């Protein structure tokens, strides 16, 4: 019977297609807004790798909300490297998955963060609602678009930036919580990832202001020709540090450690830094940073380690079940 033969053929090809992650491929599991960055970086790295006398490699990408991606790696997605939105998510690879050592962040320069970003506002052309700073976001009638901090790394940076502003302005935590609570009442759509929020704001025309990664805001301007939107830099924001790590357990299994390490190290090279800057990430390398300094507005920035006691303290306090974010939503 031909159906049976077809089934056999299909099954056979499934078995061949199954273990496709061989030694000459590298899987980079990343968060939402880095798609364009890594498309360009992967090409550059591949050329660099071949110039060093290696065979060309196939670099695979997977993107999604940062928490979701970390969870997939913990559940068995065979990432060689992870490039996520925040250190807290990579910590989970150690805590829950035992995939990397606890001190992973000390293995690469700059706390394993080859590029940084910050949180800015994207508003519609002409800024019809006159949004200049965080204060303007809690006015009635202003619709704010930001993703869900439970699932999105960028959203957690957004949340903390707003919190830092309110705390500096009003002084107490209670007032900061009230401020952030009022802000989130102005949010009509809470997407699961940063990219979903951008699509909601840009393509579906919802909201007056998008809280976004600086790189994401610039990208939206570039993709849309810059005619419909403007970037507003608030008086205070947060230094967003998206770190990278080799996933030890996976590269040992696949024998790709040298490749994975070379890949991440290349992010720190001048070429890698330039690609990051071209994709609107703030480079660490000072020479490259000077080259692109007109591109990025100077901002007053708080840091996660300096002002929030690191992710190990901030994550449970703000975002775990029963944390500040839950209190805000259940207060109604």
């Amino acid at each position, binding site marked *: 019977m031909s159906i049976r033969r077809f089934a056999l053929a299909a099954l056979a090809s499934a078995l061949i297609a199954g273990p496709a992650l061989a030694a000459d491929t590298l899987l980079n599991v990343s968060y939402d807004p880095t798609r364009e960055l890594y498309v360009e970086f992967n090409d550059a790295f591949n050329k660099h790798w071949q110039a060093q006398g290696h065979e060309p490699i196939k670099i*695979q990408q997977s993107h999604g909300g940062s928490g979701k991606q970390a969870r997939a790696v913990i559940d068995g*997605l065979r990432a060689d490297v992870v490039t996520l939105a925040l250190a807290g998510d990579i910590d989970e690879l150690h805590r829950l998955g035992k995939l990397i050592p606890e001190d992973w962040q000390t293995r690469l320069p700059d706390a394993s963060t080859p590029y940084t970003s910050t949180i800015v506002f994207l508003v519609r052309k002409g800024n019809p609602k006159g949004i200049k700073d965080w204060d303007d976001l809690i006015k009635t009638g202003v619709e704010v678009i930001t993703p869900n901090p439970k699932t999105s790394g960028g959203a957690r940076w957004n949340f903390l930036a707003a919190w830092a502003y309110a705390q500096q302005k009003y002084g107490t935590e209670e007032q900061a919580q009230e401020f952030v609570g009022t802000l989130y009442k102005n949010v009509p759509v809470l997407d699961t990832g940063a990219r979903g929020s951008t699509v909601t704001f840009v393509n579906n025309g919802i909201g007056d202001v998008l809280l976004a990664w600086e790189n994401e805001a610039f990208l939206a301007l570039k993709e849309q020709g810059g005619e419909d939107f403007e970037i507003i830099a608030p008086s205070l924001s947060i230094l967003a540090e998206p770190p990278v790590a080799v996933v030890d357990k996976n590269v040992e299994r696949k024998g790709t450690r040298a490749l994975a390490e070379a890949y991440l190290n290349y992010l720190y090279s001048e070429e890698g830094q330039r690609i990051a800057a071209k994709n609107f990430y703030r480079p660490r390398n000072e020479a490259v940073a000077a080259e692109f300094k007109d591109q990025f507005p100077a901002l007053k920035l708080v840091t996660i380690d300096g002002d929030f006691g690191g992710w190990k303290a901030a994550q449970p306090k703000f975002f775990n079940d029963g944390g500040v974010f839950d209190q805000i939503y259940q207060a109604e």
Partner: protein
Amino acid sequence: MTSASLSVTANSTANATRRGNALGRRLLIVAAWLVFALFLLLPLLIVVSEALKQGFGTFFTAIFEPDALAALKLTLLAVGISVPLNLVFGVAAAWCVSKYEFRGKSLLVTLIDLPFSVSPVIAGLIYVLLFGAQGYFGEWLSDRDIQIIFAVPGIVLATLFVTVPFVARELIPLMQEQGSTEEEAARLLGASGWQMFWHITLPNIKWGLIYGVVLCTARAMGEFGAVSVVSGHIRGLTNTLPLHVEILYNEYNHVAAFSVASLLLALALVILLLKQWSESRIARLKTGAQP
């Protein structure tokens, strides 16, 4: 009871007796058309119009892009494995349910139907619980370097799960209606079990079978939630077409997303045509059987 012939004869008598209701009739037809246009036609049109916003060039680029083709291949593979397996299962299940009486039969039928009303997200979740690195078989699989979720087998499993009932559900009422007299006669005349199945049963249920396969194919091709949980979203490797649509949609690639969506829409329309055709064959078979 043959519905087609009945409503035709009823129709002719009705025309005479029911002229007074012509206005109500016309109103109902117009209402049906409106509902149809609003709920079914409009979503369809918007897919096509968004896809062709920038002309056919971008449309075809989006469809023939390597990642889209890889997604198409994976989708076809998942369909190619899950449909035949569920076909064999459907025939076996329909056979034991319709030809015999046994205790617990209605429980069995409920179990066969169960995947219909299990949320697709749960369908994905259960395989993560079983085969994920933290799951019940995670360590065992990891020691043997076998990958199920975030690879092709997981996608096939999730697709299999959500499409389990389709063929069985079409066949059970059909085979119950047909009864077993023909098979019994064949057996008494000395046919072997397999001869009876190939020569008597299969021709009788052929069109119902095709109908079930068509529905099964449609669902397997379009499954999103379950596959999304177990896919890992690796571009060009573990993305099926519906997942590829989501990715493009999230990449400011509105036009490309709708282009790939309209490819899926075209496949859906082909499926509807096949369904219509097998349905009309079933109807003809039934009217032919008892003129």
